[in-house]
């Protein structure tokens, strides 16, 4: 038996080592996201200027020591607007994904576990939603309801939960077949316990990972709709809106669009990396 214990001692050491060494890309992603969060939570500390302050003496200035990202056609400091924009865009990231994640996960777990008639209904709903390209559907709904962030959140929620539900449903069905769930049934545990204590924690991890990457998609979506004039409305500092505003000045003052665009991309990359890293961490070890 000593040799068996020795064997597990070695395994334990290795398990600890694995947890202590997260992927460097995860750290990079986290750094980016934390920086964004700082900008969002404490913009008045990070940003040197008031983002909506017009300054007609400093119109269309190139990046300089005074204005790191230059100024736009109203003399507003682009850097400060980017910083204040973080708040808006991170909110977008959260509100376009939170409801779909929560509702979709719950529906997916229920459908996957109960199956049969519930699965039939669910399948039809999914079919209808998936027929349309995501963006088109969202734009259509926003167009019906009217532009603005609230309606955008509504539109995305109506459509987006389906993707999470599908993911979690599939995973639930897989977990339902696994032997530890069969064991739980033979142990006489109630269906509620089996679903919430056993299946759910194992089925939800793909949804969590997808949520992280979905946030980066959410930012891009918000920016796209902002660019189209259907999302945040000017004069709100929002990265997509800023890119749109600057498009008339692409030749004369490219910094107005470029910097918000770059930060947008960076935010997307940051969340993607975090999602990737979480996938690694959350994967059940074997």
């Amino acid at each position, binding site marked *: *038996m000593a*040799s*068996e214990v*020795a*064997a597990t001692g*070695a395994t334990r050491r290795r398990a600890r080592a694995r947890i202590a060494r997260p992927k460097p890309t995860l750290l990079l992603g986290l750094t980016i996201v934390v920086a964004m969060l700082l900008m969002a939570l404490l913009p008045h500390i990070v940003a040197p200027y008031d983002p909506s302050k017009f300054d007609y003496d400093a119109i269309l200035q190139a990046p300089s020591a005074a204005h790191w990202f230059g100024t736009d056609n109203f003399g507003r400091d682009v850097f400060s607007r980017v910083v204040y924009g973080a708040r808006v865009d991170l909110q977008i990231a959260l509100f376009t994904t939170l409801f779909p994640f929560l509702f979709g996960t719950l529906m997916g777990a229920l459908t996957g576990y109960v199956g049969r008639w519930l699965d039939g209904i669910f399948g039809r709903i999914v079919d209808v939603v998936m027929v349309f390209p995501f963006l088109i559907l969202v734009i259509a709904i926003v167009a019906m309801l009217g532009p603005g962030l609230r309606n955008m959140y509504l539109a995305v929620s109506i459509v987006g939960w389906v993707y999470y539900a599908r993911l979690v449903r599939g995973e639930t069905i897989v977990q339902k077949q696994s032997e530890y769930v069969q064991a739980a049934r033979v142990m006489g545990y109630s269906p509620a316990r089996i679903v919430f204590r056993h299946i759910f924690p194992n089925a939800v991890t793909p949804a969590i990972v997808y949520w992280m990457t979905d946030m980066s998609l959410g930012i891009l979506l918000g920016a796209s709709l902002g660019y189209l004039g259907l999302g945040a409305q000017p004069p709100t500092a929002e990265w997509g809106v800023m890119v749109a505003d600057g498009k008339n000045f692409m030749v004369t003052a490219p910094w107005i669009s470029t910097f918000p665009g770059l930060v947008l991309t960076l935010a997307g990359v940051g969340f993607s990396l975090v999602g990737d890293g979480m996938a690694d961490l959350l994967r059940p070890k074997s």
Partner: protein
Amino acid sequence: MSRPPAPHDPRAAGLPDGEALLSVRHLDTTFHTPRGPLHAVRDVSFDVRPGEVLGIVGESGSGKSVTLRSILRLLKPPTEITGEVRWKGLDLLTASRRRMLEVTGAEISVIFQEPMTALNPVLTVGEQILESLRAHEGLRGAAARDRATELLDLVGIPSPRERLGAYPHEFSGGMRQRAMIAIALASTPQLLLADEPTTALDVTIQDQILKLLLRLREQLGMSVILVTHDLGVVAQTCDRVAVMYAGRLVETAPVRAVFREPKHAYTLGLRLSLPSGGAHRQPLQPIPGAPPDLQDLPPGCPFAPRCSYVTDACRAEEPRRQPVAPQHTSACIHSDRLPAFEEVGS
């Protein structure tokens, strides 16, 4: 951790100077994993003679399947394979890829454990046989189809001509295995490598396939390397046995000797842990512990932590394999202390 290849020493394989078809010397296979190098196969040497069935037996992590794949260079980089694998004089490891493929396609064939993954699902069985016949026997058209039908018949598939047009998924497990053997035989190989060919099959089907392999060995004068973890399969089909543990070859011997007088503590332990007509419902004699992690091997003999004959000498230095009896080699320094195994029925 690779040693420079020693000069060709027939005694290292436990054979007198004779014609060996395949001669493996100091084969060493290392995988490069994120956790560091993994020596899956360490200093493995053996010979295969014409017409003989050599069994390579071991548990998980023993390196038996990796050995087979190393011989044919079937492993993906980053994998380091050193040593010598001489097929009728030609070193397969250092030959050009083209030359190696010529030789191995025509003279050496492989069959695997899972026919469903080893066979191409989008080609009919007939097409897969014809492919081989075209490439290695130069047969075409009607002559090729006739030969393919013959092969399916040879492996015991009923209605062979009709079955040429069937896809792998239309066969049952045992039939698929037979089809895989037929494809392997298309090039009239002199050596058949079989990697756990019956592990996934039911007992009665396994019996059929093993008998088929033995029959083919007789009819075609083929040699076979049979990789398995099942000692029963070894006893019933092999002429000689090579036992692997933790990537090393720990014992080689004729099959009777391996079962009657094992000369390595691991082989003995393995044999003793199987129920064999001893007192009914009495505790078995297990080997304590579990097979080792190849990336965390203790110094000395890899079996030392689990061995009941272990002494300090075992832990000091990894023992080399030596001849301990005619045709019998062992890497156990206590081979003379091991008892012979009493014959107690099956």
